[in-house]
């Protein structure tokens, strides 16, 4: 069954077919003196630029740093990076829209990625995602989403919670995870990769963590 035509495709701006305003200035490289960049962010971006033969290589780490400061790749965050790197904001937008880890909308400070790829899906990952989303329904500060393979199929079903790999998580533990995030605690202590004494439940010698 086809959905009824509403005349509007979701995700497409209403004025997509409006003629281009030729009088408008093309996007230009913002002048650093006109943009207020936090000094630590500016220093971090400059350090990244210094590591590469070509400054553009620093785009990914620079945007990552800006996202950490601003919470998401907001137009202001992009302008700040553009001013320090001396590239156009449009070029940086082309990057933020390509890579999954850049948020182009404000989605909260906590990043909860549930791996729902092939191997995890064989181990109940979809149920975990749904449980976490339900538990986090009224918690606006977390971006809870399914993510393609996170490279932790041994811990399935798992989630990357603010860059900490936690698993295996039973869907019934989802409210605990959200509660911990709400209170600023580390969810499921001892169950994250790299935590002291971490091992998989079926792993006798603990060599896999």
């Amino acid at each position, binding site marked *: 069954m086809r959905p009824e035509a509403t005349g509007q495709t979701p995700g497409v701006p209403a004025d997509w077919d409006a003629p281009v305003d030729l009088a408008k200035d093309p996007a230009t490289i913002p002048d650093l003196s006109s943009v207020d960049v936090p000094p630590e962010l500016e220093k971090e971006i400059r350090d990244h630029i210094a590591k590469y033969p070509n400054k553009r290589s620093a785009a*990914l780490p620079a945007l990552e740093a800006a996202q950490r400061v601003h919470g998401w790749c907001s137009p202001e965050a992009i302008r700040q990076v553009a001013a320090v790197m001396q590239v156009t904001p449009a070029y940086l937008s082309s990057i933020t829209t390509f*890579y999954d880890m850049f948020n182009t909308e404000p989605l909260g400070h906590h990043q909860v990625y549930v791996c729902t790829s*092939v191997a995890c899906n064989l181990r109940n990952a979809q149920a975990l995602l749904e449980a976490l989303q339900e538990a986090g329904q009224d918690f606006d500060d977390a971006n809870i989403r399914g993510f393609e393979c996170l490279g*932790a*199929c041994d811990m399935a079903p798992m989630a990357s919670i603010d860059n900490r790999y936690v698993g295996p998580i039973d869907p019934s533990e989802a409210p605990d995870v959200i509660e911990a995030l709400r209170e600023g605690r580390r969810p499921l202590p001892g169950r994250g990769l790299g935590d002291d004494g971490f091992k998989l439940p079926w792993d006798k010698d603990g060599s896999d963590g």
Partner: protein
Amino acid sequence: MAETRVLLEHIDEPGLNTIDVYERLGGYTSMRKALTEMEPESVVEELKNSGLRGRGGAGFSMGMKASFMPKGTMDKYLCCNADESEPGTFKDRLLMQKNPHRLVEGIIIAAVAAGVNKAFIYIRGEYAFVADILDAAVNEAYGKGYLGEDILGTGNDLDLVVHRGAGAYICGEETGLLDSLEGKRGNPRLKPPFPANQGLYQGPTLINNVETLFNVPMVIGKGADWFKQHGTDQSSGTKLVSVSGNVQRPGNYEIELGIPAREIVYGLAGGPPPGRKVKFWFPGGSSAPVLLEEDLDRPYSFESMAEAGSMLGSGAVIVVDDSVPVVSVALRLAEFYRHESCGKCVPCREGTNWTVKMLERIDSGEATPMDLDILANVQTNIIGNCLCVLGDSMAMPVGSMVKKFRGEFEQHIERAREAADRLSIELGVAAPPADQAA
């Protein structure tokens, strides 16, 4: 069956990620040997002789690849591909997290042998915690003078930068990785020119997987002949396999190439849950055509998996048991590739999208058995028609599932259609059949 622990040697040693512990256990001696006792040519020759094949998926000879690097004084680069994002693969994560210095040592040896003075580790952004460990290891190596200018007084210079990606499967494709490292969207490039001639910043570039470089200190330290004692004639050495899916003990296991696959799935990983049977399995990540239960008796090696019509790929074994409908696996797989297609080549961008749509129709009862032919046809029209193999990586496994489980697909279509019919009668959008009409 016990594991053969060569790559995973000392992996449980506390503090192995620090340079002191690593050196106490004999670390960086291969680097000293390669830099002070050997000529770069003989290092490359040793790698060639060892038969070490790339562990990232393609299985190309590491020594050959290094020998393709042109001589001369131009800027040359080495990229370690740590973007590990093939579904089912998690071996490099373990190696880098536990033993980062061995990777650094492997990079130093390979770089000096190939005449490189600038190296990068491109690690996927999701592995941020592993990247921190690598950063610390690289700093320690700089502190000891193993990186930087005039390493060990031999006149060799090498800079090493840990570069973090930001979540894109395509950046594991070598030319996509290069574009991403140059600060662009990770779109693959047309080949040729191959990276060995024109790669990063248009300079000659050697690209190797983490596990491949991890083998290098061992090959140099113990010699090619020792290395060849492990594995088969055409697949020398040991291999880390990541076993996942419906098994009782998912995890990383180190094996000698050539042992029967059954040993891996049942012996090491414990087989499927009690009462379940293996329905099919992916021998080398989600991009490999699926194999059946009876193929478990084949030896697990590059050549034997190719003979079976599949590939060893990254060494990720995903096991699917008989409780799982094949359509759900195919759909999940196709959705992954649709999401990750960079969109540059039409057959891949459209092919992955339409494959998902067709599988959704099969699942929702809107398809007919004829659609399976169209589905199979779409897969053959993707293969070989794009710049990179992302589209092929969906087409091959999905094509193999349709071929090997055609009966189940047809049954699924039939049942879904019946269920959809019943639903529309209940909802009153369709008239009940004449004989049931009141």
